[in-house]
C-alpha cells in the first residue's frame, strides 16, 4: 500500500536540501513556517515554545531530508509530522511552563471552540470534513482534541467527563469509522 501522489515543489526542495542547498530550505520556510508555527502553537500553547519547536524541526528537516521517501506519503505530510512530533514531545516532557491552573483555565475556555474551529475551517467539500461530521459529537471532539490540541487520552477523558477506558475505546472506534468513511 503506497500513498501515491504527484511530486511537487516540496519534494524537490527536500531533495535539494539533502544535497546541501540552503536556499531550498529557505523556500520551505517561506512557504510553510507560518502555518507550522500556528500548528505547533495550537499544541504547545505558547508562541515562544512554538517557534522553538519549528526551529528544531527545520534543523531536523535539513539533516534528515535524505530520508524522505516520496513513495511513502507527501513531502508536506513528512514535514508537518516532524513539527507535530516535536511539539508533542515538548508537551509530554512537561516543558511547557504553565502552572496546572493556567493550563486548565486556558484549555477549559479554548478547547471546544478551538477543535470545532479546526473542523469548520476544513474545506466543506472535503472527505475529512464530511467523515468527521458523520461521527458522534463525542468521538469527533475526542479525535479533534487529540490531533488539533495534542491532548492525551487522560486529558480527553477528563474534559469529556467519561472514564479513561471509555475514552480510549470511543476514540479507537471513531478512528476506525473515519478510516472506513475515507477509504
Amino acid at each position, binding site marked *: 500500500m503506497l500513498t501515491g501522489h504527484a511530486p511537487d515543489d516540496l519534494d524537490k526542495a527536500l531533495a535539494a536540501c539533502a544535497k546541501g542547498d540552503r536556499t531550498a530550505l529557505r523556500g520551505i520556510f517561506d512557504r510553510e513556517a507560518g502555518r507550522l508555527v500556528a500548528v505547533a*502553537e495550537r499544541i504547545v500553547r505558547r508562541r515562544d515554545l512554538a517557534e522553538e519547536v519549528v526551529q528544531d524541526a527545520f534543523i531536523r528537516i535539513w539533516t534528515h531530508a535524505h530520508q524522505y521517501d516520496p513513495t*511513502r506519503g507527501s513531502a508536506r505530510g513528512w514535514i508537518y509530522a516532524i513539527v507535530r512530533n516535536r511539539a508533542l514531545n515538548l508537551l509530554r516532557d512537561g516543558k511547557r511552563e504553565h502552572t496546572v491552573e493556567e493550563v486548565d483555565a486556558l484549555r477549559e475556555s479554548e478547547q471546544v471552540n478551538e477543535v470545532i474551529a*479546526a473542523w469548520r475551517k476544513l474545506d466543506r467539500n472535503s472527505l475529512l470534513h464530511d467523515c468527521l461530521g458523520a461521527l458522534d459529537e463525542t468521538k469527533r471532539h475526542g479525535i479533534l482534541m487529540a490531533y488539533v490540541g495534542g491532548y492525551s487520552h487522560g486529558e480527553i477523558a477528563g474534559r469529556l467527563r467519561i472514564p479513561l477506558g471509555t475514552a480510549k475505546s470511543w476514540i479507537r472506534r471513531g478512528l476506525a469509522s473515519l478510516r472506513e468513511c475515507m477509504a
Partner: protein
Amino acid sequence: MTYDRNDTPGTADEYVLGLLDPRDAAEVEVEMERDADLKAAIAASRERFLPLDTSMEPAAISEGLWRRIEAALPVQSKSIEKMPPTRPANDNRRGWRMTALLAIAATIALAIGLAASLMRIQEPLVIAVLLNDAGEVQAVVEDFGSEKAVVRMLADFDVPSDKTIQVWTLPSRETGPVSLGLIDGIHSATLDGPVLPTPQRDQLYEITLEQAGGSPTGLPTGPILAKGFAKLPR
C-alpha cells in the same frame, strides 16, 4: 508493547494523533523502519489528517526565526557522515526469535548440503541462513571473521537498476547494524567488510534493498529481503 500489533491501521492512527504512550510511540518509530505496512499506514493516516493543519491561518513570522535556524544548520555532507546510529536495529525481538526458529530448521537441512564445502581448509566461523518473511531460504552468509564473508544467493531478487543489495550484520546492539558490503547484481560474492569482533553464534545477518551505492545513512533503510541468525559449523 501495549498497542495492538494486529491492528496496524488503528496503531498508525493513534501514533499520528499522539495518543500512544511515549514507550509505545518509540517502538512504533523503530518498527516502522522495518514494517512496510506500518510505515504505509502511518503515511496514509498523516495524509488523512493533514488538512486540519494545512487549513490553518499562518502565523506572522519574523526574519529572526530564519536567522536562528540558519545559524544552527550543520554542513550537509558532514552531517550525514557523522550521523550516529539513532535507532536500535534489533528491537523486534519476538520477530527475530520466530525467524530464528525457522532458521534452525533450515540450517540443519542446509548443513548437510554444506558439509562438502566445510571440508575446505579455511572454514567459516559462522554460517547464517537468511530467510524471507515467508520462511523461504534466500541466501547463506558464511562469515570467516578477519574481514571476510561470503554471501551465496539462493534465490532471484528483483533489483531495479537504481538499487543494490546490501549485506548487514549486527555484532551487538550497542554497535548497531554494520554493512558487510554491497552485492553488484544478483550473484554470490565475497565481501571485504570492516574489522569487526569475531562473529558469534546467533549474530544477526540480513540483506536489504538499498539505493545504488549503498544506504546513504550507513544503516539499513530499505526493505529487508532476508534475515537469519548465525550458527556455528560443527
